[in-house]
């Protein structure tokens, strides 16, 4: 470190003492929109962001998560309460949650 000003400006005191699990770092750095489970749920009149990790078929990685899911597919898979959870669990700018799985094709 060149001088005292840079030492503080670059947050060196804390960076050199930080203990961070890679899994946590990934979740802190990314947002919901960068998650592989982030989908658009298309209804009759509107399309809203949703989280496919609530749907067991996608959560178990048995199938590729599409960009868009029809609302009927979600209803068939998890029912009405499940649909509410799918829609409540995602927002493009929301901080990544514990189920975060980095999207394959960034």
């Amino acid at each position, binding site marked *: 470190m060149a001088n005292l000003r840079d030492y503080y400006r670059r947050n060196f005191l804390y960076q050199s003492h*930080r203990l961070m699990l*890679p*899994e946590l770092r990934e979740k*802190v750095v990314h947002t919901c929109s960068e998650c592989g489970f982030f989908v658009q749920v298309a209804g009759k009149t509107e399309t809203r962001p949703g989280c496919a990790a609530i749907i067991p078929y996608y959560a178990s990685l048995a199938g590729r998560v599409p960009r868009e899911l029809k609302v009927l597919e979600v209803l068939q898979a998890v029912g009405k309460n499940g649909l509410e959870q799918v829609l409540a669990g995602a927002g493009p700018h929301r901080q990544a949650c514990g189920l975060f799985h980095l999207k394959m094709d960034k």
Partner: protein
Amino acid sequence: MRSREVVFLRCPILLADMNSFYASVHQAMDPLLRGKPVIVGGDPDKRHGIVLAASIEAKIHGVKTGMTVWEAGDICPQAVFIKPAHRHYVNFSSRIIGIMKEFSPLVEPFSIDEAFIDVSGCEQIYGFSLEIARKLKSRIKKEAGVSCSIGVGPNKLLAKMAAGMQKPDGLTLLDFPDVPVKMWPLPVRKLFGVGNRLEKRLQDLNIHTIGELARYPLPVLQKRFGMIGHVLHLSANGIDYSPVSPHSLKQVKSVGHQITLPRDYRGYHDLKVVLLELCEIVCRRVRLGGYAGKTVHLTLKDAQFVWLCRTRTMPRPTTSTNEVYRAAVELLHLYWPSWKPVRMVGVSLSGLVRNTAEQMDLFGDVEKARRLHHACDHIKNRFGEQSILKAVSLTPESILYERKDSLRHGQPS
């Protein structure tokens, strides 16, 4: 403006430190564990047998973090022993950071159970810093079920020191006028940034408390410790100019992985299997982050806990497992005799640069290896980390296969 408000405006930095985090997470998930002494510790059979966290009830009996599991069992026989489940801790931690980000976007996670938050300019929305701290504590308790200690201060250092002053479930404000009264009588080891070695060097100068360090002549400290001497002098006086930087986590300096082996490994053959698996894990992380690394670090610890770390810098940055593995094996052959038992192995890659360009070779080997890694990464992204393994991972020396086996039986690794 009243003087009380001036104090709060001067102290906009908060540090939230979760109390006995790992144990609290288990207590939050299982109501039957609440009020009982809970100890989160490794498996002694796998030689990870130390206490990682003890609940407040266990700490009352004298259980401390870092002691061996059997010692903890002797002190507190009625304790409930739980194996660590890092997936849950990461999940809780990201939820807590999410709560903090609702108060201010300036949140800097410091470890899995600690984070700084700068609430400057939020007075009109949420009130002054102490009020925000109270709201934050209650929301974390209500939504995550974990109690925390919060330190409030004019800078990160004082917030950090304040958080450690009242545990568990504390809320402490430490302002500049409080420094001589509350901070200076503490042992110098308690000052953030002072570790075991630095403490011994300071004791050589007859510095035993933070106050003695604060009053010590600055030129002498600078001559002895260089720039760190100046930082120590400022820190002891409660001065810290470090910003709360939410983006600091985006800068990656190195990626590494280390593991304590289930038994002492002897001979290069067994160790090479572990090295290859570690290189695979490290290079995958490096590729996922979009980096390429140049310097390979090999860390080894023997049965007497004596460790050795050696590095080798490659001619160009790489993401290839094979290249990193070759460098690590060279280091192993150079610096570690084959008869010497190994207890812990670690590999890390530093000198990271953005992987935007790659030097091709004449016969297309680099391109071939890159495509192979790309295909394997796609399979792992799609079907999970254990979906495709190298054949050596099926040998008894493998560490990944053992993990896969334990996962198959539903045990956390």
